[in-house]
């Protein structure tokens, strides 16, 4: 009997850590977006699939009350507010949670940026913030949430320092204690004059809301020097807390970004420290019995707002304090809070910094970036594996490094021309793609636009810089009558009705990549397969009379890099622009070098348009720079992002036209439909997705891309070859398990599986992995690596019949592998280029015609002359 207990105890001990280890994996399994076959919505964003699972919902009735001078109580009409959150458990830092509400008081005086201190001058907003602790009176005090544990990025959001009486409405809060109504309140003992020199100045009022860190340190929050270190102005991450706007129908929503203790150490939320998201719909302070006559602070407390519902306050004028978000901590506001408890997931195990193994770098595609972040720890944490690193760079740069032997493998998503002597195999590694990300607000503060549709011609118009941007572009030869920006283009308006048609410079462009990329190649290939788009590029006006920018007329497509071809420098009286003559359309486009930068620009709704021209006060020089961030309520920005980034940061992706009239959004189903269309010509070669097929299908997403691990099939060092093969095998098996844990596949990717539409990719990957590992120096047939996969994967399109010697590149085997290199590459004669002159082209026929007419006249005269003479 005792033995049984003993074994039981031992088992228990062993089981505990195993269970702990298994937990994230188990969770991840639930979280995946393997929605392809299931009936669940198959959006690439996890978000929508999650709602029913661990969402949160509550309803409260909120009422503002005044005690009248006669002692009676007047109640304003109540509002019954329902708040929902789409996910609350197992969160990661910087994850965005969708919070929605209905039934709230409509807001007024919308700020151009509602985050942090910029959102203070609004009326009747909904304050959303993250606080440490949860609302449970049964818990000890230190685990409960209170205003002192709620995070704000600035002092003015939490403290009211030296306010005049007319700005001290909180001292009449109906629910406040006598202490809280004092001239100085919030901290006992109140800070001394040395510590906070500005806090106590009679007769001004001060209310401090100190911040208490996770470690128990108290910051008095009387000025910027007494705030926690994360609360810096211009911090890398903009503030997450927001005074959000309620539309006139009482609804509103916000994507709230949670911060873990990694991002915000002082707030300190993690898997052990419970936190909450606090949502406070502001209905206005409730006020106590006024003195007679009413004091200025009595009056201040009873104010009802100066901005009408639905209005904007872009000038950032002052709002009525009693209905502003600034007093969220005041008891009558605080009691209206909804506290949504949230839990953070276990932090994933991480690589050991002192790991002596040198990293093995794979070079190339940024499309794989989000996956590589999750995959890397699964390699370094496993003794049997190697230390994997993805070095992101333009596909072609990664390809060249791989070919020259400076990199073991490249990550690319299309076929690249071979320049080296060795054959290269492409192993499918992930299915993802690009999206046209957007951030667009509906007019009149009616919320964000969520169903953007674009067709190839609109993309062609954006890429060819055929919109004018502003009046500066009007002087551009040949296209002066084109719309200023896409929102003013009738074609766009027809496709996306109900949006503001006020042109902005940012609407004249889609933020794109400056360097060569397979993404641009695919995007331009999509455009090139559209008849209308190509007709436009070839010079045919669209039905509304818009014409292509002549500099881009007849540009070759598809192409991997998109050039800046315009040369138009506007003539203007502006002395700054005269001093900095720059090509206006190139400044509008201002492409950047990574898709990550584009995702950041979209997240901040900060277009990369470089047309701002101003005098630098420091140096007195005129200079060009980036325009301002866009204001909430009038945002409009488009950018090319990877599906991985779009999912990670919750960016919206436009639906692209596939079959005429059918618009397809990126999701698992549309990615799978595209994979179904992809074909492999030869073994070890990449699959080709013909955009012509996509245009016929109507279900396939045109931006679907397969990322390949490309490595040499000869002359790769044995160790490296084994690592690349291992990477391909691991990436296409456990790396395709959807989830947010180590080694798993993040959102924005379609899992490659042994069965179904992706089977052919799986088979091709195993086959190429075997060939990479084998590094056949002599042709040895495919049989050597007993690859189980090629046998059962009969359905795959790319399986070669055995016996045929891997016919990838038969001609290359006898080539001398050690070619003498880098000799002075002799001749670089500029290729003879067609040189054209439209003037001469026009003049020449004219001259010839003149000559011909001359000939004819001369002949005619000659023939006619005798006749005439005779008649005479």
């Amino acid at each position, binding site marked *: 009997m005792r033995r049984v*207990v*003993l074994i039981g*105890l031992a088992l228990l*001990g*062993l089981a505990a*850590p195993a269970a702990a*280890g298994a937990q994230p994996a188990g969770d991840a399994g639930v979280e995946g977006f393997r929605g392809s076959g299931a009936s669940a919505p198959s959006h690439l964003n996890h978000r929508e699939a999650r709602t029913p699972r661990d969402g949160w919902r509550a309803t409260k009735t909120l009422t503002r009350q005044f005690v009248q001078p006669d002692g009676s109580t007047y109640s304003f009409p109540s509002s019954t507010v329902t708040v929902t959150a789409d996910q609350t458990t197992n969160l990661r830092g910087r994850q965005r949670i969708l919070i929605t509400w209905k039934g709230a008081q409509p807001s007024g005086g919308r700020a151009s940026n509602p985050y942090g201190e910029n959102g203070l001058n609004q009326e009747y907003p909904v304050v959303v913030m993250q606080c440490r602790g949860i609302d449970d009176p049964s818990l000890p005090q230190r685990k409960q949430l209170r205003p002192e544990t709620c995070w704000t990025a600035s002092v003015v959001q939490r403290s009211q320092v030296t306010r005049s009486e007319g700005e001290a409405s909180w001292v009449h809060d109906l629910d406040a204690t006598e202490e809280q109504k004092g001239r100085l309140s919030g901290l006992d003992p109140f800070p001394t004059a040395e510590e906070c020199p500005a806090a106590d100045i009679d007769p001004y009022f001060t209310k401090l809301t100190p911040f208490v860190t996770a470690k128990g340190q108290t910051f008095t929050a009387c000025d910027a020097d007494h705030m926690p*270190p994360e609360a*810096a102005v*211009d911090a*890398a991450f903009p503030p997450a807390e927001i005074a959000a706007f309620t539309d006139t129908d009482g609804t509103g929503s916000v994507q709230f970004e949670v911060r873990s203790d990694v*991002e915000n*150490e002082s707030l300190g939320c993690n898997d052990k420290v419970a936190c909450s998201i606090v949502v406070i719909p502001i209905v206005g302070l409730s006020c106590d019995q006024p003195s007679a006559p009413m004091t200025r602070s009595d009056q201040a407390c009873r104010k009802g707002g100066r901005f009408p519902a639905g209005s904007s306050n872009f000038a950032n004028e002052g709002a009525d304090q009693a209905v502003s978000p600034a007093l969220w901590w005041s008891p009558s506001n605080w009691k209206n809070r909804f506290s949504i408890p949230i839990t953070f997931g276990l932090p*994933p*195990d991480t*690589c050991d*910094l*002192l790991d*002596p193994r*040198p990293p093995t770098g794979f070079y190339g595609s940024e499309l794989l*970036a989000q996956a*590589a*972040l999750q995959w*890397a720890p699964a390699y370094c944490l496993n003794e049997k594996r190697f230390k994997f*690193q993805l*070095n992101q*760079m333009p596909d072609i*740069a990664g390809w060249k*490094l791989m070919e020259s*032997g*400076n990199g073991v493998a490249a990550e690319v998503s299309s076929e690249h021309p071979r320049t080296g002597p060795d054959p290269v195999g492409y192993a499918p590694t992930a299915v993802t793609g690009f999206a046209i990300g957007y951030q667009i607000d509906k007019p009149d503060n009616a919320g964000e636009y969520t169903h953007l549709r674009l067709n190839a011609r609109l993309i062609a118009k954006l890429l060819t810089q055929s919109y004018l941007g502003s009046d500066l572009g009007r002087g551009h030869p040949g296209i002066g009558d084109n719309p200023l920006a896409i929102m003013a283009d009738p074609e766009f308006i027809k496709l996306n009705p109900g949006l503001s048609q006020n042109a902005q410079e940012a609407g004249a462009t889609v933020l794109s990549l*400056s*360097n060569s990329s397979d993404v641009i190649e695919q995007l331009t290939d999509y455009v090139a397969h559209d008849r209308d788009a190509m007709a436009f590029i070839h010079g045919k006006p669209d039905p509304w009379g818009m014409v292509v920018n002549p*500099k881009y007329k007849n540009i070759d497509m598809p192409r991997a890099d998109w050039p*800046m*071809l*315009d040369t138009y420098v506007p003539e203007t009286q502006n002395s700054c622009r005269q001093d*900095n003559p720059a090509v206006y359309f*190139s400044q509008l486009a201002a*492409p950047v*070098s990574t898709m*990550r930068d584009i995702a950041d620009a979209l997240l901040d709704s900060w277009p990369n348009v470089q047309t701002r021209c101003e005098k*630098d006060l*420091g*140096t007195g*020089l005129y200079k*060009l720079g980036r325009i301002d961030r866009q204001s909430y309520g009038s945002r409009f920005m488009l950018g090319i992002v990877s599906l991985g980034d779009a999912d990670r940061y919750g960016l919206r992706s436009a639906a692209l036209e596939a079959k005429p009239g059918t618009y397809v959004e990126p999701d698992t189903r549309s990615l799978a439909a595209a994979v179904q269309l992809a074909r492999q010509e030869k073994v070890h070669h990449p699959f080709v997705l013909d955009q012509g097929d996509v245009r016929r299908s109507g279900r396939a997403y045109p931006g679907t891309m397969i990322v390949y691990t490309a490595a040499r099939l000869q002359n790769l060092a044995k160790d490296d070859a084994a690592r690349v093969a291992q990477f391909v095998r691991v990436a296409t098996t456990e790396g395709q398990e959807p989830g947010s844990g180590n080694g798993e596949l993040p959102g924005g990717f379609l899992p490659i599986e042994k069965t179904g539409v992706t089977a052919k990719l799986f088979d091709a990957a195993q086959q190429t992995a075997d060939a990479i590992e084998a590094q056949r120096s002599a042709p040895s047939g495919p049989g050597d690596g007993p690859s189980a996969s090629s046998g059962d994967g009969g359905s795959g399109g790319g399986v070669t019949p055995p016996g045929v010697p891997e016919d990838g590149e038969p001609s290359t085997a006898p080539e001398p592998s050690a070619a*003498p*290199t880098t*000799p*002075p590459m*002799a001749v*670089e004669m*500029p*290729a003879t280029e067609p040189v054209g002159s439209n003037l*001469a*082209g026009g003049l*020449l026929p004219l001259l010839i015609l003149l000559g*011909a007419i001359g000939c004819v006249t001369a002949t005619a005269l000659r023939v006619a002359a005798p006749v005439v003479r*005779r008649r005479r």
Partner: protein
Amino acid sequence: MTRLIRTVVAFALSLACVAALPGAANATVYAQIEGTGSTWSELIVQQWIADVDANGMKVVYTGGGSTKGRKDFAQDSTDFAISEIPYQGTDEQGQADTSNGRDYAYLPIVAGGTAFTYQLKIGGELVRNLRLSGETIAKIFTNKITNWNDPAITKDNNGRKFPSMPIKPVVRSDGSGTTAQFTTWMDHEYPSIWRPYFGQSGLTSYYPKNGGQMISQAGSDQVMNTIKGFAGNGTIGYVEYSYPLNADYPVVKVLNKAGYFVEPTQYNTAVALTRAKINQDKSSQLYLTQILDDVYTNPDPRAYPISSYSYMIIPTGDDDPRMTTAKRQTLADFMYYSLCSGQTKAGPYGYSPLPLNLVQAGFDQIAKLKKADGAVDLTDRDVKSCNNPTFDGKNLSHNVLAEKAPQPAACDKVGAGPCGTATGTNQPSTDENTGGGEGGGATGGDTGGSDGAGGPAAAGDAPTAIDPDTGLPVAGDATTSSGEAVYANPTELVANRAVDQRTFGWLAVLELCALVLLPGFYVAALRRRRATKAGGRP
């Protein structure tokens, strides 16, 4: 009794398993750190940031220029800054450029060459092998040389004449360390050209734009965009070598003291920086900052003159308002990674790895974080564990890379060439067999071996060239002459122009019509004449 012992042992063992399994890797606690500054070194810093994510470190870096980086650091709004130049005390505008009382230390993070990238087209084809002397460059950026057909440029290119086209220099509009490095070089090497233009001596972070064709742009990305743009023909600008490399764009080969025109590859930069004077006075606030005077005049034929280091500015105060133990740990470990493993990718990205002595000095600076906060764990984070294959473990001040750097090709010498090889490809221009095709990383050995006297044979007046077809050495002269032959001024050929096709197409139709109709007309006319003649006589 034994049973009881066994029970206890078993239980203890199982408990030990619980305790030992998790946690081991998570011993260090990290918190996110953020910084701003240089766009010169941004490309590699962003990659390091992506790499350390696997270690659980969150680092956020935004460019914006070195001046902004130093300013943000001084205002306590960042945890670190990256800058090419130290705090200037008072900047060239007379404004304060200090850390505002915040304690800090400089830490070199990566080396690189400031490259001059350009767009110059002949007959629609990009010139990829332009060579310029330092003096010519200084004159171009001070509006003294304003046309590509200037005799000075022709001379630099050994008689190769470029078309008449205005030169449009592109400079940075924001406060930039790249500008500071470039103007330091001009101020030191060509004061008689630079100072009259600037109106004072010394460096500046804001490039002075005195009329002319100059264009100013914010950030290295935008400089690159402007030059690459179609309207960019005739432009030239200065950026870190990685930018043109990423854009697959050519860079100027700059003349060095030994009389060779060289490109800022990782090798040439490393060679040049062997002459950098590093402030070794540990008590100095400028400890580890660079004095580049001898780099500019490095007599090695492989040296790229405008090479420099980029620096991180880290907070060292024990009462620093932004720092916590977790943040210091993150900063220390991020730097440990960057100085060690991170350096291995410097070459592919267009930078050059740090020599070991600087890495070691960097560790001394990191140690100041532990001094400020004893809880920071620096165990085993030292040069011994530094995973950097470019180091020579025996001699710390050796830069292995500088030793295996290939000699420049003979056609790169002043008065010879120019070489036909393209720049901006990250491949050294050399006559040595560097085995670019096979495992470039492992070539250290055969570089020295390939031609006996190889490596240090220095001056290498005419290093042997290898014929690409036969693999045999060919005479240096042959390369030279063939080079000249190729680079005679290209003549535009007028065949096959689109416009002509159209025009002559019509002409052909017209002629065909004429061919068919004219004889008929002629006969008809003859007949009529005959008829009239006949009619006149009867």
